[in-house]
């Protein structure tokens, strides 16, 4: 498993979710801290493409050997793509939380919402 890390190019929600914003589209996933706290992920329950998500609210569930947990949307918008690969290899969420472990792509309803998210340093500070 990778060392703990919080890439500088991502934005973070205090509920341990990251967003990579590219214009009005963002990719979401959970942070290294979140996957570490969950333990081995065995199942990812994805949302449907076309459904809408609200910042701060759950849009999916991950099941680890410890518990089933909600995944919170860092930003609001409409889901335009789901990482279907996680169906077969949910462990990618543990092994590569910022790469193959990405969860959904969202067309943002209000890109300025991202001003409210944390940068890597600020997020890491919440963990100590």
């Amino acid at each position: 498993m990778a060392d703990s890390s919080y890439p500088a190019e991502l934005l973070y929600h205090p509920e341990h979710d990251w967003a990579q914003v590219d214009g009005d589209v963002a990719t979401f996933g959970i942070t290294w801290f979140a996957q570490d706290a969950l333990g081995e992920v065995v199942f990812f329950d994805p949302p449907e493409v076309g459904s809408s998500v609200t910042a701060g609210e759950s849009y999916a569930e991950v099941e680890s050997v410890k518990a089933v947990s909600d995944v919170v949307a860092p930003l609001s918008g409409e889901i335009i793509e789901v990482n279907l690969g996680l169906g077969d290899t949910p462990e990618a969420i543990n092994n590569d939380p910022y790469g193959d472990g990405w969860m959904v792509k969202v067309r943002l309803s209000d890109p300025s919402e991202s001003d409210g998210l944390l940068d890597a340093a600020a997020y890491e500070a919440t963990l100590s």
Partner: protein
Amino acid sequence: MQRDRATTIFEKGAAGRRAFVAPKLDVPEADADTLLPAHLRRSAPARLPEVSEPELVRHYVKISRRNFDLDTGFYPLGSCTMKHNPRLHERVAALSGHSRLHPMQSPEHAQGALELMYNLERALGEVSGLPHVSLQPSAGSHGELAGVLLTRAFHEDRGQQRHTVLTPDTSHGTNPATVTMAGYTVVKVGTNVDGGVDLDDLRAKADEDVACLMLTNPNTLGVFDPNITEIARIVHDVGATLYYDGANLNAIMGKARPGDMGFDIVHFNLHKSFTQPHGGGGPGSGPIAVSERMRPYLMNPRIVRAQDGSFDLDEQGYEKSIGRLRGFQGNYGCFVRSYAYICSLGAEGLRDASETAVLNANYLLAKLREHGVADKLPLAFGELCMHEFVLSGSPMKKDLGIKTLDLAKRLLDHGYHPPTVYFPLLVDEALLVEPTETETKETLDGFAAAIAAILAEAAEDPAIAQNAPYTTPVRRLDEAAAAKTPRIRQPIET
């Protein structure tokens, strides 16, 4: 030392070997086709184990000796109340009047059993402070479902359609599951710094769409919520019901009554608070007790007592009943054992059991502090606890590099069943410990010393705990693989 791999009965024996030989027929042989139509019969014999009687006995005795249970060691499984099951109960339950009772027997031929059930209902009504009891539900979760269905009937009777049920974020996992099964949506309520319900959050979420708040008090953090009457007021003000999850009743029997706190519905886990063997799927029993206003909706049939003192089952007993929740009257053997427990302890004894359970939990907590492990495993909320407490293994993980799971696995090598781990979810690296009232001082001392020893060992070499256990029939299991690709049957070679 690691023991050999467990084998199934199918891997033993040899063709033609028998543990039992049926005696020669002393009646005329009948044609199988006349007894059972040909198309319903096997074309080839079933592949059954073929073993001698000693092989058979040794196989099951060997398996039973690998069991770790309450009769073999300390089992501090928080929130599950694995308490000692007095042997007297087994004798009473085995009396032929109980054990040979048939569920189809008419009430007139089961008067004693009905009287026992009637009296048990009264006793549970007394313990809970809620007078009307149904013994039907087969488990705590089944009792929860009954309680939420009663709530639905209660609201619908008033012409109200409500859609949500509140549960605290410390709740037992069965609560949200029950809510969903009963057709409601779960809304979580937060926890305050003292480990109780966050009143502001509750006020914000309690509205006319809320059907019920499901709560246990003390909760899974081992914290008794001092705001319970205020919580009841908030919930009742919006017309919702207050449901008591009886899983932690072992802390308050004879001391405080849910009915007096303002609860409308309670479920009991007879197999927890009132003793009987449980785990491994039962049998359990989850009676519910309700207040006057919930009474009309209780499950039928109702056990009634006539003027002449005789007992009967009244199918129309509760006028707006939600109906039957299961076939027959419930898990009767559980009723016998629990009634024996209540009669043999009496009101004073039940109170003593709760007091001692709380004392033992606090003693164990103090003993752990005495060992100096509190900085690695701090109490998650408060200073004292009720019958159970939740430690956070977060500093242990950070400072020593071992997780709560590693600690739990290493405890197996010390001969203890580990406490519940990773629950409740709001505590990071949670360890939920419940020692129960019958454990001795020496047992609690030994357990505290084992935890201290594991932490001391981890300070030297965390790999020991990380690779534990070493002394069990199987080493650390691959839980992720077990969840993703379960192998739940053994292929049989034919």
